[in-house]
């Protein structure tokens, strides 16, 4: 371990302090479930950013893995075993497995071609969920199930009824997932991914099998995406096919870009802004998406490194 560097850890400490204390202050500005929604979407955006911001590969179909995680969890609890833990595991593994199988078909592609094919695969899952009414509930979504309290044998956690307990459950999962991603990005393997983002040709001429490394980054990214999807299903006690839809993939990309994809916490910031704007504006106007769009355009035009880019610049000044 390198020595604890306070300056480098400051952003981590600030984010953690805000998230841990969230239930104490969230009621002044909003409500706990919205905080949980921010953490879930933040995990999804950070999972996408592992691929987008740190490997330099744009996927426009990550909703597919978010949806697989959500349906995996929901269907497990509904049909197999009313266990929250099993649901999360099945959902996450379903997303990981799909990514492992689809990956080899797409990692040769670059840029817009990669993005297009990821959309296409995402839509396949969307139509399966949409059409297969008897199993997935079709367009109406899958109801008739609820997240179950956690039973550790020696202790029980009622994440079903108490939103604050559920919030902390999601936060623990979030912290573990984010810590794994953070440590990977600071490892020699993570640096080969950053190298691919920076200059693919140079990386190839260092002897790196670029397609293999992109595949690995893709699988890691999709796995955490599926984990976020399963959390989202638990949060809503409901899933519907729109979780798979390409527009949802676009929302994740918007979160990354708005928050700043070159920054580790940027996508989290983007997710917080997006979720809050959605909640606040949609109660005021049915045209809330136009306003979110406007904010997005302003950020892209004037702050190409996102909100975190602005904060970082202010901090160094």
């Amino acid at each position: 371990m390198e020595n604890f560097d306070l300056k480098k850890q400051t952003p981590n400490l600030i984010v953690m302090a805000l998230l841990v204390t969230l239930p104490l202050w969230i009621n002044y500005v909003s409500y706990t479930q919205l905080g949980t929604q921010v953490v879930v979407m933040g995990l999804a955006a950070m999972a996408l950013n592992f691929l987008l911001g740190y490997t330099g590969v744009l996927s426009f179909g990550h909703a597919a893995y978010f949806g697989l995680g959500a349906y995996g969890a929901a269907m497990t609890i509904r049909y197999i075993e009313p266990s929250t833990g099993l649901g999360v595991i099945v959902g996450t593994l379903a997303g990981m497995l799909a990514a492992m199988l689809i990956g080899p078909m797409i990692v040769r592609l670059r840029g817009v071609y990669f993005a297009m094919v990821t959309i296409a695969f995402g839509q396949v899952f969307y139509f399966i969920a949409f059409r297969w009414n008897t199993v997935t509930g079709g367009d109406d979504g899958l109801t008739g199930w609820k997240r179950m309290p956690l039973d550790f044998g020696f202790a029980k956690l009622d994440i079903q009824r108490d939103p604050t307990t559920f919030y902390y459950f999601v936060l623990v999962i979030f912290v573990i997932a984010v810590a794994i991603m953070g440590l990977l990005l600071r490892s020699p393997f993570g640096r080969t991914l950053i190298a691919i983002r920076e200059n693919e040709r140079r990386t190839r001429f260092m002897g790196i099998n670029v397609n293999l490394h992109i595949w690995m980054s893709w699988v890691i990214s999709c796995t955490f995406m599926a984990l976020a999807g399963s959390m989202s299903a638990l949060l809503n006690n409901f899933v519907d096919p729109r979780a798979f839809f390409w527009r949802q993939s676009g929302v994740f990309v918007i979160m990354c870009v708005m928050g700043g994809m070159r920054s580790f916490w940027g996508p989290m910031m983007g997710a917080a802004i997006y979720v809050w704007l959605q909640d606040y504006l949609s109660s005021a106007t049915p045209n809330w998406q136009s306003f979110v769009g406007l904010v997005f355009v302003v950020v892209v035009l004037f702050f190409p490194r996102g909100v975190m880019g602005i904060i970082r610049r202010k901090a160094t000044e």
Partner: protein
Amino acid sequence: MSFLSIENVSKHFGSLIAVDGVSMNVERGELRAVIGPNGAGKTTFFNLITGMLSLTKGRVTLDGQDLAGIDPSKRVSLGMARTFQITEIFPDLTVRENIRIPVEIQAGLRMSPRMPKAMEAPIRQRIEQLLEEGGLTKIAGRLAGELSHGDQRATEIMMSLALKPRLLLLDEPTAGMGDDETYAVARLIRRIHQEEKMTIVLIEHDMRVVFNLADRITVLAEGRPLAEGTPQEITQNATVQAAYLGGEA
């Protein structure tokens, strides 16, 4: 057999013949320059050696091993490293990180999800040593994309050296540089060649650099070999004079 042996290689792009029956043998520890007017096929010739392009005809062997069908990234592990005409570095990373990545790759850590404790110190040491040798220590903390052209080239050369290659291929290392930068890069190449006994093949336009550095020179013109010899032999070669050097010498 020579260390790098190129036998009668050709590359056709449809009806265009870019390289036509070129042979070249480079001995261990030699510094070979490949020169020729624009469009002589030098870069294509280079890309045939590194495997970026496939051969239409001929054979390339490194230390006796036939390289046919071996992917460029695998040729690196056989000991072949190169730089590009347009510098290829990691622009948004610091110079130190630019060097760190190939050092870690060379140390076999490309798949490592964490840095083994025992390797931390030797790796840090090697990075600092490479920075020092490349004259980059003072600018190690700056973003590589913000450096002068000469410093970027030095970074790229040191990144290639970090891979501990047996053969270093340099594509126009001083292209587009002023005199001072050209001199600094040439001095770096000479040092690598003389102190580390590195085998180097370089393409170069600047004749002062070529005649100062090279042990032997291969001249290409219109994709064909025109002459080969020591710098002295080449300056005295009448065909080369007429075809190429005439204008500049």
